[in-house]
């Protein structure tokens, strides 16, 4: 059965904008993105919203629904009360282009700053031999759909714009961890993670994990293991001594 839902949607360009109220029809089985599209079709034809697959796999329709960073296409209307006002705003951490569309180029800049996969010089493409157990840890991180919800929710940059130059955010610290755990990657990424990409800023409050639509355990499986690897490299005298005495390799 359909009903009329109360929506408050952020409208505006750049920093200037306001929440506008709408009453819009909702049908059984719909998600928030469906309702936003109906709003566009019936009441606000110039409402800007980024979307693509409508299946939770492209990461385009990231937005904040009742203050929570979520994918519009994966947020069922049945999770709200019918008399509830649903507030939809753009991602808070990034500049607004128009309405619900934000400029996420910060993330692409951070991605470019990470040195790519660096295999040993004596191993040629086609000669890599890896067991499944060696790669399955990093395969979890490959599930990322680049929705940037983790980047958006991380308070290090969400609440402190000034930290953006020094902090890559959970998505790219996870990328560094993925490469550092790779059996054939020889680049030293620990120093880089700590000194350039700001791993030390992370205080492991796990919001990145909470909002991840792919349920990647970003904190437990990427950020904390990476912090421990940095401790090996920078803060643990016993590991340093062991590596000197026994010439220990990973």
């Amino acid at each position, binding site marked *: 059965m359909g009903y009329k839902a109360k929506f408050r949607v*952020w409208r*505006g*360009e*750049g*920093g*200037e*904008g306001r929440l506008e109220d709408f009453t819009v029809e909702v049908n059984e089985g719909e998600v928030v993105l469906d309702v936003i599209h109906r709003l566009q079709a019936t009441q606000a034809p*110039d409402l800007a919203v980024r979307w693509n697959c409508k299946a939770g796999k492209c990461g385009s329709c990231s937005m*904040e629904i*009742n*203050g*929570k*960073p979520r994918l519009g296409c994966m947020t069922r209307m049945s999770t709200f009360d019918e008399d*509830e006002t649903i*507030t939809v*705003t753009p991602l*808070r*951490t*990034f*500049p*607004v*282009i128009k309405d619900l569309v*934000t*400029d996420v180029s910060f993330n692409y800049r951070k991605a470019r700053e990470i040195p790519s996969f660096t295999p040993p010089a004596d191993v040629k493409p086609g000669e890599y031999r890896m*067991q499944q*157990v*060696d790669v399955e840890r990093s395969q979890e991180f490959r599930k990322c759909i680049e929705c940037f919800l983790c980047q958006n*929710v991380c*308070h*290090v940059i*969400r*609440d*402190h*714009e000034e*930290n953006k130059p020094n902090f890559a955010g959970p998505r790219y610290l996870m990328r560094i961890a993925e490469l550092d*755990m*790779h*059996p054939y990657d020889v680049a030293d990424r620990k120093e880089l993670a700590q000194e350039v990409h*700001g791993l*030390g*800023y*992370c*205080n*492991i*409050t*796990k*919001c990145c994990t*909470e909002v991840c639509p792919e349920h990647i355990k970003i904190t*437990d499986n990427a950020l*904390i*293991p990476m*912090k*421990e*690897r940095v*401790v*090996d490299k*920078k*803060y*643990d005298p016993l590991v340093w001594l062991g590596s000197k005495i026994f010439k220990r390799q*990973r």
Partner: protein
Amino acid sequence: MTQTTAESATRKQRAQIRVRTLRTDRWWLAPAFTFAGLLLFLIYGFWAIFDKTYFADPYIAPFTSPCLATSCPEGARFLGLAPFGDWYTLPPGILILGLPGGFRLTCYYYRKAYYRSFWLSPPACAVAEPHGRYTGETRLPLILQNIHRYFFYFAVIVGLILTYDAVLALVHKPAGLGTWILVVNAALILCYTFGCHSCRHITAGRLNHFSKHPLRYRWWTLVSRLNARHQQFAWASLFSVMIADLYVRLVAKGVINFPFA
């Protein structure tokens, strides 16, 4: 509506939403419970350190074990030792509480818990923190969180000693309720300790070639299973150690004196 160009300053701004959060759920509940739970533990711990009734043969209160001072009763001393001599006159619990305390203080789970509930950094996801500046764990004193693995080594020793205490109680008084409280407490403490993220790293997390170290990989998978429930074990062991400690003290004070105590 006025159009702005890509280069305009307005275009480079975030949405100027003036409220701290638009969340409508009870986001404050989890940090409030965490604050209350940790505060309760701190208050109890402070009282327990200075309470002198910590031994009721064969039970020793976990907050005072291992008892290493000469003031410890004969049966309470760990392996009969009193290495600190007569000069040490403070409560014996002070000698060792820093080790499990430091382990929990620097634990990755507890860090999340107290950063959120005590320091409000942030209080909950997508709720603005009240601080004007944030440097995380990049400088003193929080950079010291990186010594967690050293506390882990000591916590293993303390955990094994608490297990030894439980086994001693089991041998001497197998039917006592206190025995089973100590056994359950020791089991939870070991599950919490060996599920630690540092332990996970030490077993094999630091390796990139699991296939070359099958035994360490096996350990890593076992620790990973415990680690997945680290939060639950953190809370369960926090309360179990408080309950076990209080129980022993109540037996020692004569408050609990039923036959199977």
